[in-house]
């Protein structure tokens, strides 16, 4: 059931932090309405790659990008593209839940508000919370602080916050690494159901998670002092059962990493 409509495409993508090269010639196509997992050992550059997709690396002083990231056929690094526009069309969920110290309602309403949304704010907030499978748990305390939610609820709130902007792609940077197994399971179920309407890219160091939730998988690694190498990319079932590259096989069978 792999479909081939490209949603995001990296072309010979290179990333530097100052003199340190974090990504080397990455080319891959991320298909629409699928979950694509980026796996690999710590420091291999998978989060850096993810942050290239919504230009979050721009916020790190000294970073520079070469190559292209095509989104709907347009290079998001072209001179006439405002990174702010990229970021509201491509949402992001971070490793540690980072709700704002505001009410639950205000957290979800934040994106629509800053982007001058003029429709029914309450409706959009409710819809986003429904989609993030959080509505039933918070509907009676929308105007209480988001900081009082549990870690798993906070992370689903962050997903709802991203969904409120109706993004086309959602990037998730190890979204479960700070959560317990039950909360992790909920987020994974959520990812699978969200993939019906959204394109999802997830970075994870948890290979079981990648195998459980993703349709496509990319394996990255660092060799000696060369970080940011894309070793293998393909459908998850193939990558996990019949890897082409010896290094992929070693990693997924637990021989290193």
């Amino acid at each position, binding site marked *: 059931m792999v479909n081939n409509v490209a949603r995001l495409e990296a072309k010979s993508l290179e990333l530097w932090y100052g003199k340190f090269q974090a990504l080397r010639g990455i080319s891959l196509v991320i298909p629409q309405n699928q979950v694509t997992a980026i796996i690999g050992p710590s420091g291999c550059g998978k989060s850096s790659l993810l942050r290239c997709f*919504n230009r979050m690396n721009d916020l790190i*002083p000294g970073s520079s990008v070469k190559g292209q990231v095509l989104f709907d056929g347009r290079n998001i690094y072209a001179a006439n593209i405002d990174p702010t526009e990229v970021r509201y069309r491509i949402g992001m969920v*971070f490793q540690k839940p*980072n709700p704002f110290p505001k009410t639950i309602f205000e957290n979800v309403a934040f*994106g629509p508000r*800053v982007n001058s949304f003029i429709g029914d704010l309450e409706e959009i907030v409710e819809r986003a919370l429904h989609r993030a499978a959080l509505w039933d748990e918070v509907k009676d305390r929308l105007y209480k*602080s988001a900081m009082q939610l549990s870690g798993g609820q906070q992370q689903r709130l962050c997903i709802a916050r991203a969904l409120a902007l109706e993004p086309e792609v959602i990037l998730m940077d190890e979204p479960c690494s700070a959560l317990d197994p039950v909360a992790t399971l909920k987020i994974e179920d959520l990812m699978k159901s969200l993939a019906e309407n959204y394109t999802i890219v997830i970075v994870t160091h948890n290979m079981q998670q990648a195998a459980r939730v993703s349709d496509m998988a990319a394996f990255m690694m660092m060799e000696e002092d060369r970080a940011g190498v894309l070793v293998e990319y393909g459908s998850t079932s193939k990558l996990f059962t019949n890897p082409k590259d010896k290094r992929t096989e070693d990693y997924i069978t637990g021989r290193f990493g």
Partner: protein
Amino acid sequence: MKNGSAFQRHLRVRQITGYINGTLFFLATLTGIIVLIVLIADVFKDSVGWLDWQFITSYPSRKPQEAGLLSAMFGTLWVMALTALFSFPVGIGTAIYLEEYAPDSRLRRLIQTNINNLAGVPSIVYGLLGLALFVQALSLGRSVLAGALTLTLMSLPVIIIAAQEAIRSVPESYRLGAFALGSTRWQVVRHIVLPNAVPGILTGTILAMSRAIGEAAPMIAISALVYLTFIPVSPMDRFTVLPIQIFNWVSRPQEGFWHLAAAGIIVLLFVLLTMNAAAIVLRNRFQKRTEE
């Protein structure tokens, strides 16, 4: 090797050492408290019978019984209001620029070092600067405005540093979260950074104001009056402030004026404590608002 022989525990010695140190720290704390109590008690004793309504509503006079600090109190209010008006926006604006906008360049570091050093410059130096710059070069005269601008210069470094620290204490993850939702840098500052930094900024700025209110030296340097028999009605009027009035009374030979000085100190302390209390109330209110 067995544990017991390798570790010489000396538990008793360690406990005694801890106890002695704790006691020393307690005594150190006590020193400050005792000095404060003695000071306040002494001032109160001296002011008994002098701190009354007549004292607060009268102009200075050659006769201690008829003298009051009306003009000094209004002068202080004038100067502080203008100082706050000038130093809040400039100080907070500078802090926002340095923390949120300025790229990490040599220039930024130079500015930062400069500000840090300015915070340590003695207040009399600011007074002399105010005299040369505002009173003379800009021909503002020995006016309320010149005094307020001088105190603004003096307070700015402290306000900037306090505001910077408050801004820096806002977690980076909030900023990233807001950026990822398509906020512009100004929206991140306006909706995320400032609301969370306000309690710290308020505390820092009001403490800076409290320090400025008690400064006599820079006001003497720009020659604020000591014998003023009118209330300033415009920023260009001449003025006096509480610390100068108190200083003047203390230096008089007649005993009556010493009592007036003590009463003046009580008024000054009262204004100071009120401002600090306001800082605490404001901080608590904003903190509650962000946490709920």
